[in-house]
């Protein structure tokens, strides 16, 4: 999933300073799962914003909505009947959702209420960790299902480096050494031989480094 964390309320209030009536829009997908921008978080932020405004002697009218998917034009269209009454939109979706709303409603200011963080997985209740950087040319088949691009601090394709101690990365004792994990996993699978293979320098064109990416499925595109 795409993970996110809510922005500090002071930053959000600064964005909203010129407006007295806003549309606060959550998303039922990734940001709901990582508890950053679903229906519940929309309600909490709405109350917090209104209270903060009242403290400063002004009011803020907030219409709350949570879309099925904010990155999908079909669902964003549901805002059409409410957009005119709002001075601005505050989106609790990831950056994709914020941009989709901004693309659809060109004359309406749209502000982000969360910081989009990474593509990750849930490690345990309330803990999410980065797992994928979307490099566009998946290496997991070579590395025992553990990604060195997303999980090695140096993105080493042939690790580990000298900073690996007792299975931890030198940047923090909280961070596992991805190459230690890869080694252990290959060993468990009886694929130690694969560790000896040198992975060649990566072609980064498939990653964001080749510029903004797009997928066009001719069989589906209209």
């Amino acid at each position, binding site marked *: 999933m795409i993970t996110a964390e809510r922005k500090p309320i002071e930053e959000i209030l600064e964005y909203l300073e010129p407006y007295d009536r806003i549309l606060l829009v959550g998303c039922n997908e990734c940001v709901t799962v990582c508890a950053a921008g679903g229906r519940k978080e929309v309600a909490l932020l709405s109350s917090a914003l209104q209270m903060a405004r009242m403290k400063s002697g002004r009011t803020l009218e907030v219409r709350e909505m949570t879309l099925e998917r904010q990155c999908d034009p079909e669902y964003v269209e549901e805002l059409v009947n409410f957009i005119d009454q709002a001075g601005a939109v505050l989106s609790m979706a990831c950056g994709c959702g914020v941009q989709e709303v901004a693309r659809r409603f060109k004359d309406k200011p749209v502000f982000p209420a969360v910081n989009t963080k990474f593509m990750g997985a849930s490690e345990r209740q309330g803990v999410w960790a980065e797992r994928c950087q979307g490099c566009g040319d998946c290496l997991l088949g070579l590395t025992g299902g553990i990604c060195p691009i997303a999980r090695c601090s140096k993105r080493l394709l042939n690790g580990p480096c000298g900073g690996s101690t007792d299975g931890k990365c030198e940047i923090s004792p909280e961070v596992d050494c991805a190459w230690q994990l890869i080694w252990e996993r290959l060993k468990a699978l009886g694929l130690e031989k694969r560790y000896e293979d040198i992975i060649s*320098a*990566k*072609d*980064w*064109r498939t*990653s964001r*480094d*080749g*510029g903004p990416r797009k997928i066009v499925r001719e069989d589906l595109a209209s």
Partner: protein
Amino acid sequence: MSFQKQLSSGEFVVLAEMDTPKGVDISELITNARRIKGRVDAVVIPDMGDGMMRMSALGGGVLMHQQGIEAIIHVCCRDRNRLALQAELLSAHVLGIQNVVVARGEEMAYGDHFDAKPVNDLDEIGLLQAIRSLQEGVDLAGIELKGSPIFTVGCTIEPYVDDKALDRELELAQKKVEAGAQFIITPPVFDMDLFASFVEKAKPLGVPLIPTVFLLKSVGIARYMATTLPAYHISEELISRIRKASNRELECIRIAGEMVANLKQLAQGVHIVTLGWEYQLPSILDYSGL
């Protein structure tokens, strides 16, 4: 007189661009540089222009310095992060480089290492601010330097296809000047009237403009550029002049020379680009009357 002094005293400066070799054979670079020593005020060394891997601009700049030729080196953000950029700038100063141009750095995709990962940790404005900070004795981490470098700092303006694109470029140039650019190298000029109106529009920037004179080497190149790069504003008349000439190569050199001479009336210098034909620089200078 140094490039910086000429620039600040309003004198016309002549710059010639020279690429470093792809390899370690520097004989051609040195021979070509010696040919124009004393005839140009500085040699401009691109920083792996067009994303082609070559000897570094700093290496080329130092070679010029060893030959007694003042160098202006390009620095771009494509290949280095803020540590490497600052380190290179400190090295450049110590090795005798007094002038740098913050260049855009063409997309990696257009170069010969198209699978490489571009860095772009800073952008052009960020790099100009970094240079200013180093000159003030502090690095980007806020740590005081033991001795600070001094540079004359330039920037570039990209070719513009119409007035709207030009306005955008000028707005960006304004930011670059505010961030520390002291002169601007502008795109190749093929149309003097157009350049004259550019000069008017760019006046508020308040820094010297150094237009590029680009050597068209053949009808084919002129035609190709006119078709694929409309922002260069190459006219049919110009293409036809080359086509009709009995010696087309010489005509191209003559055109470049005339352009240099004409620009003397409008700008504070010229930046001659010959892309591989650096051996023709003396002839261009001959035809320019300089």
